[in-house]
């Protein structure tokens, strides 16, 4: 079956511009996660959606970052007024329910010039 997909795979943007990253989770997975991975490092949690509950935004690094999810489907992560330190791979994962094994997409590599 189809796995988690993310688009675009690569994004180069100028400092100060807004970017929108998309994640399509595995069908039927109620939980969706966004992570940031800087070069050569581990995963940094950003935000978590579980069904129709209020999202856990505790990992968002600043108010320039926001995310939305429509029901149990697509999610978009938006970064406003991008900064060079936002350059990283942004990974999306989904799981059947709370804190179960996570299935990751291939990530979006964001480069802010």
């Amino acid at each position: 079956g189809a796995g988690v997909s993310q688009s675009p795979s690569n994004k180069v943007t100028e400092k100060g511009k807004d970017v929108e990253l998309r994640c399509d989770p595995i069908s039927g997975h109620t939980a969706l996660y966004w992570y940031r991975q800087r070069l050569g490092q581990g995963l940094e949690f950003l935000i978590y959606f579980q069904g129709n509950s209020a999202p856990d935004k505790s990992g968002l690094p600043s108010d320039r970052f926001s995310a939305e999810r429509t029901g149990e489907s697509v999610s978009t992560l938006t970064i406003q007024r991008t900064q060079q330190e936002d350059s990283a791979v942004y990974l999306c994962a989904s799981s059947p329910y709370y804190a179960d094994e996570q299935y990751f997409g291939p990530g979006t590599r964001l480069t802010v010039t």
Partner: protein
Amino acid sequence: TQLLEQSPQFLSIQEGENLTVYCNSSSVFSSLQWYRQEPGEGPVLLVTVVTGGEVKKLKRLTFQFGDARKDSSLHITAAQPGDTGLYLCAGNPNNAGNMLTFGGGTRLMVKP
């Protein structure tokens, strides 16, 4: 300081050698997971350990969960170039929120 500390951070070995990667914490985890990530891809789940003292084997990979459920190890026997990648441990501490916490990873390179 990360909740899950992995060591070593980097490991470069020759094909056929054995190695052990460690994942340690001062917190208790209800379960721990190990993932492998290859360049340009997302992490892929290898195993979940849930019982203190548990040992799981996956071909040449052996995973252990500490008795106190605060640490885990991954041992690879006779490493092969295909084992090259970033190994990540992850878990949900007993009193944490709703998400997994990941360690910083161990980057393994196996040279032929």
